């Protein structure tokens, strides 16, 4: 038995190092990072925008219509699995739009961005609601516009409040990238699967894959925690 694992390990090292498997792994790591980071950034922009629309006072018709549209968007992206969104994006929308791509990476980034936009909008909305209403009133009373007060006063405080939840969303995104292999993207999971098929055994590659995700996630949560501490310092 012992011998067996030693053999498997040898095969894995062989595939990883001598057969240039590490190049695939690095590419996968880079793509995973790219999808998660760019996806989150798109998500934050979309989410903030939607959140502002949804908390806006609704005396007029236009904000009400926008609110309904945003509501539909959020329900649509939260109500279907990300996997399905990816498959529809890649296999349905691309052919309809007549676009051909050699890699699903751009599709994955856009889908991840749109999907996390829906979640971040809800996170951001709770963050905005957590900021005392007096902050908005004080800004408006001095003649600042709703938008200026929102962007310079309320949102910065809201972000501070929701930072842990936002970090959580980032972690979810990183882990979800493991499904992008289904749309012709070489992510971390796909890279390790390739190592497995190259070395004719999936035992070590998949164990290592798990370790890799765990390390990444631990690093992120450590980063978010220290960022949180630093932001708190400016207040006390």
């Amino acid at each position: 038995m012992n011998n067996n694992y030693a053999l498997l390990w040898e095969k894995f090292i062989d595939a990883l190092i001598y057969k240039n498997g590490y190049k695939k792994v690095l590419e996968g790591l880079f793509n995973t990072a790219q999808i998660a980071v760019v996806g989150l950034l798109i998500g934050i922009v979309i989410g903030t925008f939607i959140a502002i629309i949804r908390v806006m006072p609704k005396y007029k018709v236009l904000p009400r219509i926008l609110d309904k549209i945003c509501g539909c968007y959020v329900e649509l992206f939260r109500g279907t699995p990300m996997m399905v969104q990816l498959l529809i994006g890649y296999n349905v929308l691309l052919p309809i739009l007549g676009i051909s791509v050699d890699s699903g990476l751009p599709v994955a980034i856009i889908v991840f961005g749109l999907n996390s936009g829906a979640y971040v909008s809800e996170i951001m909305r709770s963050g905005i609601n957590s900021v005392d209403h007096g902050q908005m009133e004080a800004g408006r009373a001095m003649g600042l516009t709703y938008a200026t007060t929102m962007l310079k006063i309320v949102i910065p405080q809201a972000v501070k409040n929701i930072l842990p939840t936002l970090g959580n969303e980032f972690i979810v995104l990183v882990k979800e990238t493991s499904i992008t292999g289904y749309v012709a993207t070489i992510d971390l999971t796909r890279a390790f699967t390739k190592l497995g098929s190259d070395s004719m055994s999936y035992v070590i590659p998949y164990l290592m894959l798990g370790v890799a995700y765990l390390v990444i996630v631990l690093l992120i949560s450590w980063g978010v925690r220290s960022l949180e501490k630093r932001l708190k310092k400016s207040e006390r």
Partner: protein
Amino acid sequence: MEKKLVLSVKNLKKTFNNLEVLKGVDLDVYEGDVVAIVGPSGCGKSTFLRCLNCLEDPTGGSILFNGEDLADMKVDINVHRQKIGMVFQQFNLFNNLTVLQNITLAPITIAKKKRSKLKNKNFFIKIANLFKGKDNKKPLYDLGKSIAQIKQEAENKAMELLKTIGLEDKANSYPSQISGGQKQRVAIVRALAMEPDVMLFDEPTSALDPEMVGEVLNVMTTLAKEGMTMIVVTHEMGFAKEVANRVIFIDEGIIVEEAEPKEFFTNPKNPRLKDFLSKVLV
């Protein structure tokens, strides 16, 4: 000598979902007036004050300020709010900004906006000028100060104002690092930085510890002596008696009695005011 009319309120009404809070309030405020508004809790005095700068949109009546009716929804309220300073019960300093930034934010933002508007206009004039003869080119607007100058001037002014309340060493502190009384004094200075024509105070000392009330009232008294027009909703009868030149008693959404402080406190006419004063002046 005729005094200049700053704010003229006519028949102001406000209802919240069928609850009539203000039932037609009339008030003329002249330059240099210090008007104290007193009344039992829930009588609508805070609502009245908040209607004056449209933090609550009035449901009826008119508020004339600088020749325009603020109750009219078509008026750009932001422009007028710049000239109406407001101080809140809960201070409402911006928690994410330092004391200095709290004071300079509005002046800088608004000056910058004006400048960039002129800049945009100039851009279109320049394009239009390309198609005009040499002699009838339209002149460009003068942009005035540069952004760096705007910032520098706002900061200098903020520091000067902070010096008047003795808090210049707190300029780079955050609101959470200073006491309640200091916060409220900064809030007053923040409103002053916009050079308002009138200042509204919404129970400025009610959220303060007793030993901090004095420092805030001192700042307000100085302000009144310098000739600032002030409308103050307050429970501090001492302040109303000493500093105000008119005291107003609001009850159940209408002004029940208005008089000079001496008359108001020594010779109240309305029975409800008599009752109120007997309770607060113990």
